[in-house]
């Protein structure tokens, strides 16, 4: 039983319709807060590539123009950060991971996203497919800003937002799961906001 904070009312969600879209322990923000463990990398587009790797070698690599030439989607999604803010109806332009994986034949069951700056994050490959994950390069009609992960970030909105790795440079396909950066520091291995899987053991 939680102790009652006498006199605490809090700020209720504006409408029941929105309330149903906010996972437990989250609150809405209209801001777009930035959270990163280190400096923002700046990689020139001429040097940027996105690679799908397996067993230590690149299976497929796209340059920036090649990625930009792939069919893109306008994605509208609610995002949920483990630091407790949620933002509704964020708008992205993005390439579906399905589109990338369609060019590869794999039996891998897990993936580790890798990024400029050394950040990694892991998830089952199934969570990156079936129209649930993208490589996003525009936010709200503009090129994705560096502090928000530009030139491109992973977008996996059904998991806590640390899984939507900024500055993403590729996916490593794995037979066995391997924890990423925050997953090694006590954050939940899967990170479903609706089950409030914030920390290891939740």
């Amino acid at each position, binding site marked *: 039983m939680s102790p009652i904070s006498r006199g*605490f*009312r809090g700020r209720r969600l504006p409408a029941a319709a929105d309330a149903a879209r906010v996972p437990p322990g989250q609150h809405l923000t209209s801001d777009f807060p930035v959270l990163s463990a280190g*400096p923002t990398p700046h990689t020139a587009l001429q040097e940027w590539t996105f690679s799908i790797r397996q067993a230590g070698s690149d299976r497929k690599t796209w340059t920036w123009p090649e990625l930009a030439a792939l069919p893109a989607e306008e994605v509208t999604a609610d995002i949920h950060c483990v630091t407790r803010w949620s933002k509704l109806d964020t708008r992205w332009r993005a390439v579906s991971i399905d589109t990338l994986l369609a060019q590869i034949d794999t039996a891998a069951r897990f993936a580790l996203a890798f990024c400029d700056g050394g950040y990694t994050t892991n998830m089952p490959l199934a969570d990156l497919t079936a129209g649930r994950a993208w490589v996003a390069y525009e936010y709200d009609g503009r090129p994705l800003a560096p502090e928000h992960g530009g030139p491109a970030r992973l977008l996996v909105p059904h998991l806590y937002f640390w899984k939507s790795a900024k500055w993403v440079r590729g996916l490593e396909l794995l037979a066995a799961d391997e924890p990423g950066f925050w997953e090694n520091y006590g954050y939940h291995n899967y990170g479903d906001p609706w089950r409030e899987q914030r920390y290891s053991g939740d």
Partner: protein
Amino acid sequence: MAGTAVLGRLTWQVATVGAVSGETASVRTITLSVPDWAGHAAGQHLDVRLTAEDGYSAERSYSIASAPGEPLAITVERLDDGEVSPYLTEELRAGDEIEIRGPIGGYFVWTGDDAVTPLLLVAGGSGVVPFRSILRHRHNLGSEVPVRLLYSARSLPDVIYRQELEHAGEGVAVTYTLTRQHPPDWTGHTGRVGPALLSATAWPASDGPLAYVCGPTPFVEPVAGGLVSLGYPAHRVRTERYGGTEGS
């Protein structure tokens, strides 16, 4: 970037407020008594949950202000449009109970295991809170690790822990810059942390320092980038940013 701190299950615990003390007009340090606190590392944070009479609850994260082994304390800045911080800074009284869970975060920490690497701490506003934990931990350990703290605040009365920082001890150099207002006789730095101030204050990259930068995003972004420009390898610059767009 391999991790070390794999946590056990973090459960909500009831904490009893020991004291609420004023740091500045809008900042309070709250000491908390928790029967089963597992201990923490300097630089970690914890989650706070408040529950209203009708069961509505709100949760936020706050940096831990106390050193490992000391009575647990958080320092909270009141955000005028905040949901939880106005309650914590203005309504909370000694003896009240709130729920907490933690400690959280294993990257933005300083353990003291490394006794030689110079530390650069760069704080914007209430970003100084985890550094109080680090400086106290250093003191409690008897560590001689050289530390430079560059602290950007709006004005002198907005400096948190000012007295304590003045007695931070041998080997700790504190540099302030005041961004909005300064006393007429102020001889220190003014204005935001730019490349010149950073370059004058930071350890040279050739000393192999480890940098921690904490504050609002508009503060952390140029500072972290500035350190990289000064030759700090990106993996030697650890950042903690918090939301909101207001710098200090």
